């Protein structure tokens, strides 16, 4: 008995989308860009709309807004950078929400695609953070920001041969690259995994219904896991951004 052939679509098909508007233009809109825009509208609707009438005694929705703010302000800004750094909360909060909303499209039925699995988005965000922490580093510490990293105090002179190039590569390349790739790889992997499980469920349902429950249950479990991953990656990205900013503001600890 032939069960047919299970064909997994080319990776390209999972991530590259046709232009929806302005076809062929350099500013063409595809599914990725559309989801980015919808996310932005949702974030603004929820947070700008929701914060219009804040009450002294918070109820329901206001709690969500305040919890989000405090999560970023206390959990990230104050914890990592310091109590005097609340001016960074708006940026870190916006970054967190932006990534979080984009990540969650991965598990939204019928959409099921995280725009953060397209390198364009993590790359842009990582580059923005990269520019920001270099700017802040030189603004607050001058050239010491660079020399402090390249020639850390307390290291035997001979070891600078080893330490300095490593630190240089670290601060110039590894930081932004790891920041971008961590988010990209996680979201890509999640998307591929969920697609594979969904296709496998469909395939087994058609050809061997008895075992279809296996991939189906796994699909549900991984979906729940991906919600966690989506949140965690947004958190990690924001947290590392805060760590880099802290490093720029204060000399090496």
């Amino acid at each position, binding site marked *: 008995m*032939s*069960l047919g*052939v*299970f*064909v*997994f679509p*080319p*990776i*390209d098909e*999972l*991530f*590259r989308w046709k*232009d929806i508007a302005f076809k062929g*233009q*350099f*500013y*063409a*809109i*595809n599914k*990725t*860009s559309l989801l*980015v*825009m919808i*996310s*932005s509208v949702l*974030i*603004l609707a929820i*947070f*700008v709309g929701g*914060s*219009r009438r*804040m*009450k*002294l*005694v*918070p109820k329901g929705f206001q709690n969500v*807004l*305040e919890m*989000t*703010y405090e999560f970023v*302000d206390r959990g990230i800004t104050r914890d990592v950078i310091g109590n005097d750094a*609340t001016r960074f*909360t*708006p*940026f870190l*909060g*916006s*970054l967190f*929400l*932006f990534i979080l909303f984009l990540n969650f499209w991965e598990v939204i039925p019928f959409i099921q695609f995280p*725009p953060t699995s*397209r*390198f*364009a*988005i993590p*790359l*842009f*965000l990582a580059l923005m953070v990269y520019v920001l922490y270099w700017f802040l580093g030189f603004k607050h510490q001058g050239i010491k920001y660079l020399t402090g990293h390249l020639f850390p105090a307390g290291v035997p002179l001979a070891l600078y041969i080893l330490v300095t190039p490593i630190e240089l590569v670290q601060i110039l390349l590894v930081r932004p690259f790891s920041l971008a790739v961590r988010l*990209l790889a996680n979201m890509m992997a999640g998307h591929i995994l969920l697609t594979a499980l969904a296709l496998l469920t469909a395939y087994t349902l058609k050809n*061997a219904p008895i075992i279809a429950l296996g991939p189906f249950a796994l699909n549900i479990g991984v979906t729940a896991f991906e919600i966690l991953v989506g949140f965690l990656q947004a958190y990690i990205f924001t947290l590392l951004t805060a760590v880099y900013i802290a490093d720029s503001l204060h000399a090496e600890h």
Partner: protein
Amino acid sequence: MHLAVLLAAESVKAKNPIVPETKEIIWAVVSFVIVFGLLAWKAWPAIKKAIADREAHIRTDLERAESAKDEAESSLVEYQRQLAEARNEAGKIIEEARLAADQVRKDLIARAEADATELRGRAQDDIRLATERALADLQSRVAELSIELAEKVVERNLDHDTQIALIESYINQVGSR
């Protein structure tokens, strides 16, 4: 069971899916700038203010409650002090009143006794005086009568019976006084 899983990136005509696309970067930049701008302008300050307002409100409430408690405690101490003072004062007043009443009682008794003694003395004096006066009256009366009797005796030169009758009438006269 033959299950062929083809994980193939076959016929990748276009670019590698990892390579970032300019059009996606453009919209990501535009979107993030708008999101950050509007959140930083409208949402975050409003939320921050709401939290700060509530914190301030709770802080003032707590401080007010704290000071009210302190005030109440000091008032209580003050009241207790005043109460103790008042009790002390009341006790003193009662004691004084008791002493005063005692004194008054003693005074009254003493005065009553004095009055009684005085009254008794005065009564005795009165009695003595009255007796003396009566005796004096009697003496003068007896003298007058004796004189009268003598006059009558002299005047009439009386016989024995007359004399007796005279004396008897005299005695009767005196006795009826």
